[in-house]
């Protein structure tokens, strides 16, 4: 079944944690973009993106992560990406984005 994309957002001490559930593809990417950009602009803190329950992402989604990172850097903050599944971590490595984000 098509899973769509869901979010859970938590405000931590010095950062915001956004957990992604489901799939990021061309269909769900607009939601992701709006979510990430609004968090970055409204909070101006570090952003932790938890990907434990992210089952799928492609270049559309990675491009949005990069866009959010550029915004974050304008505020002197960073994006930390955690708990990537192996198939998704592979995409970060292929594209060299593993060196652009802090991956934990």
């Amino acid at each position, binding site marked *: 079944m098509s899973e769509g994309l869901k979010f859970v957002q938590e405000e931590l001490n010095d950062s915001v944690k956004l957990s992604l559930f489901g799939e990021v593809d061309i269909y769900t990417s607009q939601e992701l973009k709006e979510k990430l950009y609004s968090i970055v602009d409204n909070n101006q803190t570090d952003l932790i993106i938890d990907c434990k329950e992210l089952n799928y992402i492609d*270049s559309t989604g990675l491009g949005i992560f990069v866009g959010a990172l550029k915004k974050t850097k304008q505020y002197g903050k960073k994006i930390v990406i955690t708990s990537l599944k192996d198939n998704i971590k592979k995409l970060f490595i292929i*594209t060299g984005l593993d060196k652009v984000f802090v991956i934990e």
Partner: protein
Amino acid sequence: MNSVNDKIELTLPFKAEYVSVARLVASGVCSRIGFDIEAIEDIKVAISEVCSKIVSIGSEIANSYTIVYDVSENALDVSYVCDDPSLKCIFDEEKDGLAINIITALMDSVVLCDKSNRIISMSKVLEGNR
């Protein structure tokens, strides 16, 4: 292309919401061929990258595009066809760097600008048969 045993075709509208259906078909077909989970995930991403690009361009003259999954004993060949010739050679090295990187890394062979009537074709061979 490998010697084809079975042909599965999926015709989709130019809409983002159906790209996931192309991935589902990929899963089903690939598990029949015997690809492991990692290879199946790779193939799903590659197929999806091409669908996303096609959908993001769309067509003024066609209502749909077709993904052809050619199954042989130890490989999957995937190609895309559409009545709209303007959908040829749609990937741009500049703008689509991420997508091109990903597709070429995940598949064993990729023809992004096919000279035949296919828009794009690519294939992946079972581990151990390469």
